[in-house]
Structure formats: structure tokens, C-alpha cells
């Protein structure tokens, strides 16, 4: 009793200096929240509020004109029997599985090529980076639509090499998605720059040691550079996977908003847009938004679990 009382008094009546510090700290906390006011308002009004509303709408039938009608899990159940939903999920998975690894492999390769003492590295880096700035623009999607069209640049170049092709690559269900994968690979610049930054962090002594031990270029890459770079690869993998889930513009433009031909470019986000803002099935679109969030969460979690088997953090064994 006495001890706790002493402790209590000690806590309540500290030496003036500590008391001053506590007051200062409380004041600092208040100041911090003043700085945070705009962000916190934004968080409630534009993020959490809408998320709650979206969750509610996902359990309703809502067409924007009439009041929302509660339908329980109907929207979620509908996904299992909605052929276009299933197709859009398939298209998105195929897109991610192809586009992300290809883009990252290319980005890593180019970063390795650029990570040398050669003249003009800055210029090359700039040129390789440019497409990733433009890749999500409508203008480049318009260009892609022409390049892979019937009389597009690709068929013209093929003609120069004596191959006569009148295929519309964006117009054929077998190849349309591949042209979008290619667009994503083409925009490999930003992961490349992250790889470059990572490569610069690898200490020269480590590479020197590998060379002294008689490791050739390939073995140095496989056993020294790759493990040291694995956290960066992981970081890029997580980011690019999430970006690819959200891809929208190129599919919208090359298909004229339809997701065609034969729904072969019906990205998940495109179908969500069509349902929510084309057919005004806003309850269903909300449910799709939540499933997307869930899918991103699950894939990210799986990536984190798998990363234990291949991502190497230098301080692990110390």
C-alpha cells in the first residue's frame, strides 16, 4: 500500500524538470494532431467512411436511384455463377502471372547492364525509365491500339521481313491480353531504378571476395548478387503485383471500354467499372471492390509467407 502510494506520488509529483518534460510532451502531442488534422479528416471522409459505406452497399441491391435494399450475401454468391466475373478474375490472374515476373526479370537484367562504369549511364537510364512514366497514359494506350492493329506498326515491320500478316493483335482474343502484358513489360523503368539503387548498396568488397574465391560472373550473380538483392526483388514483387491488380487504362482504351474481344481483356477493374457505372449495379460493384481488396491482401500475405524461403536478410544469422 505504502509502496504503491509512494510510487503513485512519484508518478504524480515528479521533479519539476521531468514534470516540465511531460507537459512539453503533452503539448507536442497536441501540436502533432494539429498537423495531422487535414490528413485525419481525409482519412475519415474519403477513405474509412466510404469503406464502411461500401461494405454496407455490398450487402444490398443498389442502383443509385432507388434506396438500397438489403440482400445479405447475394452479391457475393452471384460472383460464383457470373460467367463474366469469373472471366474477369481469370484475365486478371493471367495478366499478373505473366506481366509481373516478365517485367521484373527485364528490369533486373537492365539494372545489371546499367550497373557498370560506362559512359552515358544516365542517358540510358532516362531512356529506359521514360516508358514507365507514360505507360499508364491514354496517349500510349492509343498508340498501342494502332501498333497492334491490322495495319499497325507491328504488321508493317513484319512485312519488311517478308511476313505478310493481317492479324489485328489487339482485335484477336488469343493475343489481345498479350499486347497488354507487353505494355507492362515495356514500362519496366521504375522497378529497374529500384534495382539499380539496390545494386549500388552491395559492398564492392563482397564482390571482390567472390572474385578472389574464383567465382565467375554467373556464379557471382546466382550466389552473391541475387541473395543480397532478394529483399529488393521482394519489395518490387509486392508493389508491382498490387499495381497490376489495379490495371485499368490500357484495357479500357484498346477494347473501347468493353473488355473485348470476347472479354479477353476484361480486367477485374474494368468489369467493376462496367457493373458499377455502366449498369449501375452499385451493390455488386461494391462487393467486387471488397473482393479485390481481399484478393490483394491474400496474395500479399502469401508473398510474405513464401518470402521466408527465398528472401535473404543479411542480419539474420548474426
Amino acid at each position, binding site marked *: 500500500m505504502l509502496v504503491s502510494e509512494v510510487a503513485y506520488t512519484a508518478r504524480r509529483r515528479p521533479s519539476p524538470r521531468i514534470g516540465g518534460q511531460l507537459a512539453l510532451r503533452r503539448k507536442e502531442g497536441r*501540436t*502533432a*494532431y494539429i*498537423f*495531422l488534422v*487535414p*490528413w485525419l479528416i*481525409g*482519412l475519415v*471522409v*474519403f*477513405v474509412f467512411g*466510404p*469503406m464502411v*459505406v*461500401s461494405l454496407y*452497399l455490398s450487402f444490398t441491391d443498389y442502383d*443509385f436511384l432507388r434506396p438500397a435494399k438489403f440482400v445479405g450475401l447475394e452479391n457475393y454468391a452471384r460472383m460464383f455463377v457470373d460467367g463474366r466475373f469469373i472471366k474477369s478474375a481469370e484475365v486478371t490472374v493471367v495478366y499478373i502471372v505473366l506481366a509481373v515476373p516478365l517485367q521484373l526479370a527485364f528490369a533486373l537484367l*537492365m539494372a545489371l*547492364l*546499367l550497373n*557498370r*562504369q*560506362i559512359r552515358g549511364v544516365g542517358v*540510358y*537510364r532516362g*531512356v*529506359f*525509365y*521514360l*516508358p514507365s512514366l*507514360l505507360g*499508364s*497514359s*491514354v*496517349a*500510349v494506350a*492509343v*498508340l498501342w491500339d*494502332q501498333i497492334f492493329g491490322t495495319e499497325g506498326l507491328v504488321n*508493317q515491320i513484319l*512485312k519488311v521481313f517478308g511476313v505478310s500478316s493481317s492479324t489485328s493483335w489487339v482485335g484477336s482474343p488469343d493475343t489481345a491480353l498479350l499486347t497488354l502484358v507487353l505494355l507492362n513489360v*515495356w514500362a519496366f523503368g521504375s522497378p529497374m531504378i*529500384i534495382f539499380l539503387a539496390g545494386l549500388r548498396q552491395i559492398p564492392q568488397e563482397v564482390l571482390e571476395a567472390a572474385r578472389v574465391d574464383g567465382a565467375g560472373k554467373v556464379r557471382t550473380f546466382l550466389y552473391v548478387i541475387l541473395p543480397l538483392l532478394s529483399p529488393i526483388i521482394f519489395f518490387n514483387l509486392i508493389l508491382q503485383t*498490387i499495381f497490376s491488380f*489495379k490495371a485499368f*487504362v490500357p484495357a*479500357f*482504351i484498346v477494347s473501347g*471500354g*468493353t473488355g*473485348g474481344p470476347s472479354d479477353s481483356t476484361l480486367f477485374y477493374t474494368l468489369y*467493376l467499372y462496367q457493373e*458499377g457505372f455502366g449498369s449501375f449495379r*452499385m451493390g455488386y*460493384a*461494391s462487393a467486387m*471492390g471488397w473482393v*479485390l*481488396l481481399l484478393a490483394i491482401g491474400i496474395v500479399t500475405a502469401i508473398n510474405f509467407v513464401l518470402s521466408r524461403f527465398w528472401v535473404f536478410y543479411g542480419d539474420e544469422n548474426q
Partner: protein
Amino acid sequence: MSIGAATARRGTPAGARRSNVITHIVLLILAVGMVYPLIWMVISSLRNNNEIFSNPTIFPSSVTFSNYVRGWNALQYPFGQYLLNSLLITVGSIAGNLISCSLTAYAFARLRFRFKRLLMAVLLGTIMLPEHVTIVPQYVIFSAMGWINTYLPLIVPKFFGVEAFFVFLIIQFMRTIPRELDEAASIDGCGHFRIFSSIMVPLIMPALATTAIFSFIWTWNDFFRPLIFISTPSMDTAPLALNLFIDPTGGVDWGAAFAMSVISLIPVFLFFVFGQRFLVQGISTTGLK
């Protein structure tokens, strides 16, 4: 650095020098391949439509500006109007991001407060949050407020730090600035608002430049949100207008489409050329797109 490079060069055996030449050749081929479609688009925008369908080279032959004249006037309003609309939204977004994100970042980088770790996790979480989860309710809310078909849904949220990327970017940058500077100011009697405005802001100019450039490019390129919130043709942004050139049933005027595409990419290209240093810095510290 330069001494090291010089030694390296002097000590380079002939084989390594040859491999450097090969690297250059490989890089050059790849670089040309990468930008070829873009250059071809620019050159093609100066050709007539027949040649666009038959000339895969980038050697200019007959130069004509007729595509630009036709494209500019192809839609309901002159293309300049769409560019101005985009510019208005972009300038508003840049201002909003700069103010709201730097204020938020200061609290996270320099101040101690309750629930800091939790809020930091929330901040990072919102970076990953797909906007598709919130877009339907946002539409409902904004329409209840009478904001549909105005630029408010595109600009106002930026004043409330919704682009958490930039908060993170500025936090990362602030962390590299020595605390002694603000401590000295604090001893001199400066409050945090003075420290923020007179000491921090001038020191984080590079991060603010990166924020401004990325804000510009992202907002300028943004298609999804304007597509949802704008439906009056006179208020269309440049990307919305470009979309109108593509007619899925065929009969696209490619010359005109290319010409307006080139015009809409010029500002992005200029920011890229003059802001590359900031862009590279921004990507390497945060991993933004």
C-alpha cells in the same frame, strides 16, 4: 569518385574494355527499341494517314501539320479546352498534395504523439488500398453534395492528404535532415509551426519537387476518376478527350489521334527531362511508380 574511376579505367584489361563496348551496343539497341514506338508516333503525327499505315520507319518524308489542325478541331470543343481543363485539375492537385502531405509528414517525422505507430501503419496501408473499394460510395457521397460534374472530387481530396505516397516520400526525406537544426530553432523559441515553415520547408525542397512532379504526371495521366466524375463534354480532361478518338467500330483518324496524343504527352516529357533527378530520387527512396 573520379579518382576511383580513373584508376579503374587504367587498370582495366583489354577484355573488360571490349565487354564495355559490347554493353554499349546492347544498351543502344535496347534503348532504340524501347523508344522506337514513341518516336514513330511523333513522326507519324506529321505524316498523312496513308503513310501511317505503310511506313514503319522513322525517317521523315513529307512533313504536314494537317493532323494537328484536324485533331485540334475534331471533337466538340477545341483540344486546347481539354488541355486547360487538365491543367486546372493538375495545378489544384499539386497545391493540395504539397500542403497536406508536407504537414502530415512533419508530424510523423518529427513529433511524438499517441497512436503514432498505429497511424503510421494506417498511412502505409492506405498507399496499398485500391481506390475501387471506395469509388462507389465516393460517387454516392459526392453526388449527394452536388459535386458530380465538377472538378471538386478530383481536387478537394488532395488537400486532405489522400495521396499517402507523398506523405511517405516526404517523411523519408525529413528523416535524413539532422535534428540539430530544428532543435537549435526550438531553443531560440521557435514553435513547431515556425520550425516547419521556416526551417523544414526550405530544406525539403527536393522532396517537394519530387511530389510536385509526380503529382503532375499522375493527375495529368489520370483517366479512371475523371471518367467517373465528369460527364459534360465541355469539362472533359485531355485523356478523356483522347479516348474519344478511338472508335471501337473502326474508322479511327490515326493521324489526328497521334497528333493530340503527342501534344498531351509533351508536358509529361518536359517534366521528365527537367525533373529526372527528382523522379529517380523519389523512386529509389519509396518505390513509387
